[in-house]
């Protein structure tokens, strides 16, 4: 028994190691192939850049100190947007849950608002909030707030009917129902909505920076594209990927800690 259990542990560990190895292998061979193909001019380095050129640019920008302010600004805007839209989305959903009648009345408006392409709101929001960080954050919030409200409501309304009946039998009011049963029941759902919101806030912040074009990674991307500095564009995309990866790891750790 013990021997076979050890065997099982060993096999599982081995499988994990192989997966990790292959993941890293794919990344390295991709970078390698990219470099080789641009060196031999099978790919045009002017259009696709190359790992070496990107690294050189990265080092240069770190040395000159112009990279970090951009990363900082974008990350700050993104986290503001994420927190504000998630919290206010949950609050609005809670209010609608407490007053089902209001929810019924507002339902078509929410669905229509959610269906509007959010980019279309960008120019208006910038006029209202200014061509600054406030404007960018408001654009990013507009990307995720309505969908947060809608999916929170659907998590709230999918709570086990047995638990709701149990609360009714106890004569609980709707606020007690929300706080004591609905919130804890929907916790997992709310966390996965938070993950979705990370992605949406990124899109919102980058779109905002495209429009405002002062600083941030979105600005670097825009500037790089317009001046045909594709090294810069590629660097921007890579930095975005790394920050997203880090944020996802943080959220996953938060979820794990709860279990």
């Amino acid at each position, binding site marked *: 028994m013990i021997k076979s259990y050890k065997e099982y542990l060993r096999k599982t560990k081995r499988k994990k190691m192989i997966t990790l190895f292959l993941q890293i292998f794919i990344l390295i061979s991709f970078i390698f192939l990219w470099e080789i193909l641009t060196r031999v001019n099978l790919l045009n380095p002017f259009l696709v850049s190359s790992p070496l050129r990107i690294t050189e640019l990265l080092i240069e920008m770190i040395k000159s100190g112009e990279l970090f302010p951009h990363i900082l600004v974008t990350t700050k805007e993104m986290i503001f947007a994420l927190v504000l839209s998630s919290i206010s989305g949950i609050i609005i959903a809670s209010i609608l849950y407490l007053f089902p009648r209001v929810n019924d009345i507002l339902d078509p408006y929410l669905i229509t608002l959610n269906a509007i392409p959010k980019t279309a709101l960008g120019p208006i929001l910038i006029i209202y909030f200014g061509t600054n960080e406030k404007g960018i954050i408001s654009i990013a919030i507009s990307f995720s707030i309505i969908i947060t409200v809608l999916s929170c409501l659907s998590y709230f309304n999918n709570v*086990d009917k*047995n*638990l709701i*009946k*149990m*609360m*009714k*039998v*106890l*004569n*609980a009011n709707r606020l*007690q129902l929300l706080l*004591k*049963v609905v919130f*804890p029941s929907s*916790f997992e759902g709310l966390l996965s909505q938070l993950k979705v919101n990370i992605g949406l806030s990124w899109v919102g912040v980058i779109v905002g920076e495209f429009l405002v074009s002062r600083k941030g990674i979105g600005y670097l991307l825009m500037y790089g594209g317009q001046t045909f500095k594709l090294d810069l564009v590629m660097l921007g995309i890579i930095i975005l990927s790394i920050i997203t990866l880090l944020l996802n790891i943080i959220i996953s750790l938060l979820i794990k800690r709860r279990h």
Partner: protein
Amino acid sequence: MSELVKLNRISKTFYSMNGETNVISNVSFSIDENEIVSIIGPSGCGKSTILNIISSLEEQNEGEIISNAKLGYMFQKDALLPWRNVLDNVIFPLEIKKIKTKDNIKYAIELIDKYGLSSFKKHYPNDLSGGMKQRVSLIRTLVLRPNLLLLDEPFSALDAQTKLFVQEDVFKIIKNEKISSLIVTHDISEAIALSNRIIILSKRPCSIVKIINIPFVNLSPSERRKHKDFTLLFNEVFSNLDE
């Protein structure tokens, strides 16, 4: 013996956009102290609606209910909160009713200890067996000191073997706490094994077909199942059920 609850010519109709459905028609019965009554009838006949009316989750269209009862309600599924441990689940009704006093918490712990769950206080529902969960669920309703327990098919989610154990368990606790019970079920042997009286309902709209008194009320469920008249009673109930 005094009556805890009395239903007098109760009728209930549900309305929807597709029309109206008459589910209960002219049902009268009462439950005395220390009595276990079963309601049995074809599925979908409106048995559970009777419980909902007694517990005022729904309102009857006609008839009246005279009640001196303090109600407890036990569900088909355990309806425990998976993120709370056994103790926190048991004191949950106290929290909702805002009567989480020292005395009441002490009473809750006494109940847990009395019914053999003391070593499971800090366990979460998912760590418990189906039968154990139902016991916790029952203790949770006892915390509010009810004198009439409404049980809505409380054993139907359990497998056949567990069911027998839990029936024995619940019966013992109900008798021990001297509370009356109204059990809705579609299981004939369950009704005979647990109750003093069986009310047989007709198809929808349900009305009372017959009330059968069980002669061996002093026996436990397992003893009743072995009794020579058990099959006789079973057949009598069965012949009055229309499907």
